[in-house]
């Protein structure tokens, strides 16, 4: 009797598997950097309106856009978050899979901080220093070779004489991509490398750069425990842990809210989300969600997403995206994508 019951339940589960139902909640995928802001908006949206709270998955920018571009229909996500602009390759993939109309919205900026423990010596880095300390191969004055720098004062005599040990995210992370591009490759440019050579600059793998997982909290506690190390993490973690860690100056600019917002701090990137126009009107609430995200309450000066560490857009740039959302203007393909 008992085993027969179990069998019946098993049969029922199998039956349920075949009936995939249409959704009534928005599905969002994408960047782990945008995740905390996107979830905050989703939560407020769920509370303010009668729509279901959207489901937000943190898959990384690349993974998210891949899912997003896989096709149109309830089994595919409606919105993709990205901590960089969509790539031309991804845009074309979308087009090929029938996702032809995409609305692009920029929501703000995120600073990438190179920091250490609050009691450790203060670092005043240039991007060239970062390149020389962390690139796998270093070129200087025509001489190229594997990176032999062991301590910071070998890189730049005005830096502390401590070994180069930098904790940072693994290659799967968008933060790592952005760090490589905005700090190390830009540093290579300053060191005089040509465009082709810059593209090939990657992070060294001989133990000076220590991959520490995607969890920035872990990096923060490791830095606190070991003042001899530097770490690479998002600005919101500096913001929340200002009593434990401090950010290094990069090119003479401190990583503060104002410096990142004004664009003075060089290692910052823009954050975006992409909406599938074909799903508007099919999945309820997408228009309202977009409006909530660019609302004053969310990414205005005192908005709740800004309190979570998002660096907001200037007002006039935000206005243009609010207008784009109202018109539901989709991407034309003529944008300057890479």
């Amino acid at each position, binding site marked *: 009797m008992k*085993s027969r019951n*179990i*069998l019946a*339940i*098993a049969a029922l*589960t199998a039956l*349920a*598997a*075949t*009936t*995939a*139902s249409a*959704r009534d*909640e928005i*599905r969002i995928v994408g960047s*782990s950097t945008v*995740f*905390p802001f*996107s*979830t*905050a908006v*989703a*939560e407020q949206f*769920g*509370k303010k309106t009668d729509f*279901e*709270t959207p*489901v*937000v*998955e*943190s898959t990384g920018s690349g993974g998210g856009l891949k899912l997003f571009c896989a096709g149109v229909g309830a*089994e595919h996500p409606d919105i993709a978050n990205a901590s960089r602009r969509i790539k031309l390759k991804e845009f074309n993939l979308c087009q090929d899979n029938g996702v032809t109309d995409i609305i692009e919205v920029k929501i703000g900026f995120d600073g990438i901080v190179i920091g250490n423990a*609050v009691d450790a*010596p*203060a670092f*005043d880095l240039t991007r060239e220093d970062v390149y020389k300390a962390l690139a796998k191969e270093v070129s*200087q*004055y025509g001489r190229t070779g594997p990176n032999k720098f062991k301590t910071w*004062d070998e890189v*730049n*005599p*005005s*830096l*502390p004489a401590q070994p180069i040990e930098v904790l940072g995210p693994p290659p799967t992370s968008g933060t790592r991509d952005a760090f490589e591009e905005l700090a190390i490759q830009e540093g290579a440019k300053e060191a005089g490398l040509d465009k082709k050579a810059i593209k090939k600059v990657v992070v060294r793998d001989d133990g000076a750069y220590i991959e520490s997982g*995607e*969890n*920035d*909290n872990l990096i923060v506690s490791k830095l606190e425990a070991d003042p001899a190390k530097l770490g690479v993490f*998002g600005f*919101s*973690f500096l*913001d*929340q*842990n*200002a*009593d434990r860690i401090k950010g290094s100056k990069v090119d003479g600019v401190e990583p503060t809210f104002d410096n990142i917002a004004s664009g003075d701090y060089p290692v910052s990137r823009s954050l975006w989300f992409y909406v599938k126009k074909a799903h508007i009107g099919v999945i309820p609430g997408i228009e309202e969600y977009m409006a909530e995200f660019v609302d004053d309450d969310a990414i205005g000066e*005192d908005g709740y997403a800004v309190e*979570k*560490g998002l660096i907001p857009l200037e007002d006039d740039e935000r206005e243009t995206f609010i207008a784009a959302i109202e018109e539901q203007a989709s991407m034309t393909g003529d944008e300057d994508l890479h």
Partner: protein
Amino acid sequence: MTDAASLSPSVHTTDEAAVRLKKRRSAETRLKAYGMIAIGLAALALVALLWNIVARTMNAATEHYIAIEAQIEEGEDDFLKVVKKSARAGFPYVSGRSGKRELYGLFSDGAADDMRRARDAGTLETGDAVPMRFLMSDTADLYMRGEFGSLENQESAGTLAIEEGGKAFTLRTDTGAFTDALGRAKAGLAVEADSLRRQAARQSAGITAQEARIDSVTGLEREDMLVQIEGFKAARDRLDGQASALDALVTGDGDTLLELSDRMASFFVEANGGILKLTEVSADIARAVPLVPMNDTDAAANGAWSLRILDRPEIGRPVKDRQVAILETLQRDGRIEEVANWKFFSLSDSTQPEIAGIKGALIGSMWTMLVTFCLAFPIGVMAAIYLEEFAPRNRFTDFIEVNINNLAAVPSIVFGLLGLAVFLNFFGTPRSSPLAGGLVLALMTLPTVIIAARAAIRAVPPSIRWAAMGIGASKTQTVFHHVLPLAMPGILTGTIIGMAQALGETAPLLMIGMVAFITAVPEGITDSATVLPVQVFNWANASERAFDMRTAAAIAVLLAFLVVMNAIAIILRKRFERRW
């Protein structure tokens, strides 16, 4: 025999024998000691882990409320506005944009949620002054727990004269009551000056190093180096200048007023029912701005006022000085309540730590485990019965056996990929649903169940089978009436091991979308859901510090879930157990 008997005493009584015996005995003692050390270390690790989790969980066991009066109009809908309005009414002296922002920052959005729930339940009172508890924000709650240091209390020394001058006050004593504060502020400056000077010294070292090298390089490199040296010199002079400026402040005598900044410790004076924050300080005189207004500006007698110090600089903590002053006043008036945090079990995930709960993940885990059990247990047991009792021994069944054993060792993420390809893309199972999760975890658990079930069935003595067959039972009857009930305790143990493993998995769920932010509580196996370990993972990743203790609490819930599951298995096992 007789030879051996006559030989043996001499062999075992020689000196060599005694040495050998001693060696053997000490080897045994050592082995026992190793075992005890190993167990001791394991126990220590377990205690440390549990202690760590329990200690942090205790912080999440309570939450703080602020008791003030609410202003709620009939039919009010925007409760966030009600919270702000009530806050302004409760603290009329807080003015200015940033002041109000800091005031609102003490209250959680959860306070508005509480009102909304009360309205929906029909228990919300309306009126101009409804006594009510407002949930405290996460950072204020952390301050109450001492996360950002606690206020040091220095008893007053001498009378404090208070003079009003514009918005600020001048405080005077004639006993040098502020000497200690001045000393601390100066010590802070000295540390800052030291750090600047060390940076300047590094620039000098850079100059020396590059100047020593400059003659060995030519061309562009030399030019760059000259520019670099100039840069070092400019930086050195700038840093030295800043350090000297600070030195001048540090060496200034006790009568000059020293300006305080948000990079130094915060100093408060509590007098006449109000709290003032010092902005400038000397040994006898200080200037201060009111954060909580005083009742009057009469001189405060010795013992009637106090100097309070928060060592952590304002810039390094999310709770600002004004918030500290308001919280301390509320605490003094007994208007802060600390109550048990039952909400943790009745709310689901949130981006705000103080209103984040475990319910959604707990129910999600239950549904997922139900699906896993309903699939893995019957299929696993059936497979084991077939392989053990009915299948012929040949190459094909050997091949299957090897594969099952190998499957048990496959990394769990692979099952996630399989689940994505087969269940989601091919069968169209809803993404993020406990059904998809349960299917994947069932695949992962199956080999464990099959192996355990086979071992348990094999352990049933053959005499049981012979006896059943001897009285005319068919093979099927033998298995289901006699062998299976006797094997059940072992099968259950194996199943529980597999289920416990499945309960703690996040990797395979990543692929099928269960690692997500989901606030809805799943009502069935096809709703979107998340599970306990995913909740732990998500909270551990959040930047808000208050999620730290909630992560620990979620781990505690996960452990409790595991214990309950094991307890059920043990009870079932006891009921089925036979000895022969």
